[in-house]
């Protein structure tokens, strides 16, 4: 609490803008950081429109600026997976179809830049849909096996272990050597602040960095975004999502996201389908989306839970404080302490969560610590409330119990907490 008081005073005295949005309603993940100037506010609005826009198969009289869908794609728009700017949802229980998730695909080895070697017939990601005349690649379906975990006081938590399968594969079998990784759409707010954290501050954390390929500079660069920290910055993350998820090329990714064997398709567009101006607007939009402010700070359980969060080691990886180094959208925030509860670094999370797939320097059991801000509002706006990289955890408690590897001591400590303390820890998480 003292920390928040100090921060509040600092903000008031400096006249600095808040980095959080105070509303906890259903639009909590959709608001910009306070105090954007006119140009950035206009760019935010433009980017918001593009983020929500359904892309079309050309030519188009109605939407000539949004032409180029496919030939393969997952959904028509960004918002279809990042529902209300929050998480995607776990697959349907009735038929297991993963709708807001991407199934990443690769084979043994690395590509020319050190990244995963994409599947020869399906590319980097399974795209369920194809434009008319082009068969979608197939569907990723998930089946769950439920099992019970007993806590030390006898309480039972039911977990579900997902099994990923594929059906209706249109271009032949994947092959036994194929590596797969199911990834749920993550929240998109607060990312501009994370992008602004100085590299030195990130590298001072306890995890391992993922150094990845920057398409723009051609350099080996610290990865910050993506569930395995496989993207160096928001521009590349967003442009990559456009081409992989919607089939929209850009100056950063000028070739269609087609498998190596589909050379005709890979020839791609003569000009980028997403213009640089559109890409810049979406980047501005995502950069400016504010994380929601915490709630119930005076609740004694929340206070106790925050202490426990540190005591059992959660904050070793879910770092509770980072600093804005350089934030051009709102320079008043430079130097401000933020509380994303991530270190943006990789950690071995154990066999239970392993996808068995390398991604640059991330190993098969590694995941980047996900930010926890906004966790307590997950699902409130119609977004998904399924956690971990593949949405297998239906509650934060389930997510904690899946932690293994480096995080196993913390998960074990949670198992051993008396019920009131467990509840306090969960109350703290719900306040984020």
């Amino acid at each position, binding site marked *: 609490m003292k920390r928040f008081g100090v921060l509040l005073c600092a903000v008031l005295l400096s006249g600095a803008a808040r980095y959080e949005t105070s509303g906890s309603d259903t*639009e909590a993940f959709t608001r910009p950081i306070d105090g954007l100037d006119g140009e950035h506010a206009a760019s935010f609005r433009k980017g918001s429109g593009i983020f929500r826009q359904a892309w*079309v*198969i050309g030519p188009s009289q109605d939407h000539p600026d949004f032409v180029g869908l496919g030939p393969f794609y997952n959904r*028509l728009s960004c918002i279809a997976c990042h529902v209300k700017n929050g998480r995607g949802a776990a697959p349907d229980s009735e038929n297991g179809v993963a709708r807001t998730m991407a199934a990443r695909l690769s084979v043994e080895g690395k590509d020319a830049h050190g990244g995963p070697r994409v599947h020869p017939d399906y590319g980097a990601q399974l795209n369920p849909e194809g434009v008319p005349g*082009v068969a979608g690649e197939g569907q990723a379906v998930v089946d769950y096996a439920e099992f019970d975990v007993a806590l030390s006081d006898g309480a039972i938590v039911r977990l579900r272990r997902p099994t990923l399968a594929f059906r209706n594969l249109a271009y032949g079998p994947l092959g036994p050597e194929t590596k797969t990784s199911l990834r749920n759409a993550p929240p998109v707010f607060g990312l501009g602040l994370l992008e602004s954290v100085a590299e030195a501050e990130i590298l001072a954390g306890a995890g391992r960095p993922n150094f990845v390929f920057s398409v723009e500079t051609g350099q080996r660069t610290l990865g910050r975004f993506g569930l395995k920290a496989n993207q160096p910055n928001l521009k590349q993350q967003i442009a990559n999502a456009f081409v992989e998820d919607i089939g929209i090329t850009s100056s950063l990714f000028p070739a269609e996201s087609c498998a190596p064997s589909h050379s*005709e*398709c890979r020839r*791609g567009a*003569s000009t980028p389908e997403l213009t640089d101006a559109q890409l810049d607007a979406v980047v501005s939009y995502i950069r400016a989306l504010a994380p929601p402010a915490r709630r119930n700070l005076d609740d004694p359980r929340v206070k106790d839970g925050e202490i426990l969060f540190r005591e059992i080691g959660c904050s070793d990886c879910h770092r509770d404080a980072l600093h804005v180094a350089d934030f051009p959208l709102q320079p008043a925030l430079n130097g401000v302490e933020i509380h994303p509860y991530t270190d943006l670094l990789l950690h071995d999370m154990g066999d239970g969560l392993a996808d068995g797939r390398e991604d640059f320097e991330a190993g098969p059991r590694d995941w980047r610590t996900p930010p926890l801000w906004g966790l307590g509002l997950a699902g409130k706006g119609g977004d998904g409330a399924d956690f971990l990289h593949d949405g297998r955890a239906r509650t934060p408690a389930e997510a904690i119990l899946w932690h293994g590897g480096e995080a196993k001591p913390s998960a074990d400590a949670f198992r051993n907490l008396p019920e009131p303390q467990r509840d306090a820890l969960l109350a703290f998480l719900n306040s984020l």
Partner: protein
Amino acid sequence: MIRAVAVAAFASFFNLLCAAQSGASANETITVVTSFPEELTTRCEREFERGHPQIHVQFVWKQSRDALVELAKPGQGGADVYWAPAPANFALLRDRGAFRKISVDRAALPGRLGAQQLSDPAGLYEAYDVAGYGVVSNPSALAAAGLSAPRRWRDLASPEYARQLAMPIASKVGFSPALYDIVLQSEGWDAGWRLLSEIAGEATLLDSGFAPTASVREGKAALALTIDFFAEIARANGAAVEMIYPERRAFLPAHVAMTAGSEHVAAAQAFIDFLLSTDGQRLMMERDSRRHPARPDAYQSASKGFANPFALPASTLLDYDSEIGRRRPPLITLLFDLAIVEGHAESAELWRTIHDAEKKFAGNAKGMAPLGEAKRLAGFIPVSESDAGTRTFLDRFARRDAIDAQQIARWREEIGAARRQARDLVKGLEPAP
């Protein structure tokens, strides 16, 4: 173009491959052309596929003009279902033989709202929802400004709402030609344009569909003209806004139809049945869609305060002429640009001058007399009510690239001349006593 050729060649190659593999798939895919937003299409897809796991729904997103092109292609672009808020398209495509008759439960789906026919009488397309048109307001902002909520369209012309109002530009916002046609059908062609000109005089003109509601939600305007679901979505998500339906409400339908060329008739019918079922219709009332079902029994689960058009007395509904309405949008769009968007600042000054003069000469019949003529000239539109109700005249504006440029120039000049006369009339008024 290079890409189009490449994709076509690619598609051709994989057509062969897929044909060879088609026997291996137990699934059936139906293609649905739609312009509904992804919040709604995704919900419908998900709920439908839960109950029909053997059928996959693929959406092809096309707005009105693109949809017409797509459904006119050989094989109708592979589409099985057309589902969209585009009444003119459905009537046109029906006339071209683009649809196959569908069966519906007429006891549950009336296909009418009061005297207004919503669905095709021959069963070639069915109403899916109805959308209302009116004014989104911020009650707190109105109260703070000492203003009461408008009850009729003509109330909005009151000078007390000047600079408090926002409205969409007809050529930029898809729903707005229908919105303005409702005003015109409610108030009459000439009086309606005069009213729109007066309302727009000092209003802010906006170029996107959600902008009117956003401007009210953000406190930039106290009132804005809109289609109702934008306001209802904002309200359902916690915004302090209210939707006001002016007296004599109008609700216009969106439709669903099966294409004549569908090769998946049973699956397409199953999807249509789902959309029109009670459960399917309820989805559109969810927080991020907030549309009005065409099926009255779906309203049993509606949240408090959500309007049920089917529960309204027929006398409160506008007798909307949908045959005229479906042909007018291109003309309305053109005239709105000429008479309201072009020279907007000049028009705002003219209406401000007229309103000031009205205030000065209140109770002075002699002084007020020229002002009626000044208002008529300020809101002049160079198309007669008779022409605006004639099919052959209206059809001349159906294609934007075929409109006579000389006629547009003449109309622009006539509007400008009328405004100059109006300005001269007001300038020539005797000083107020």
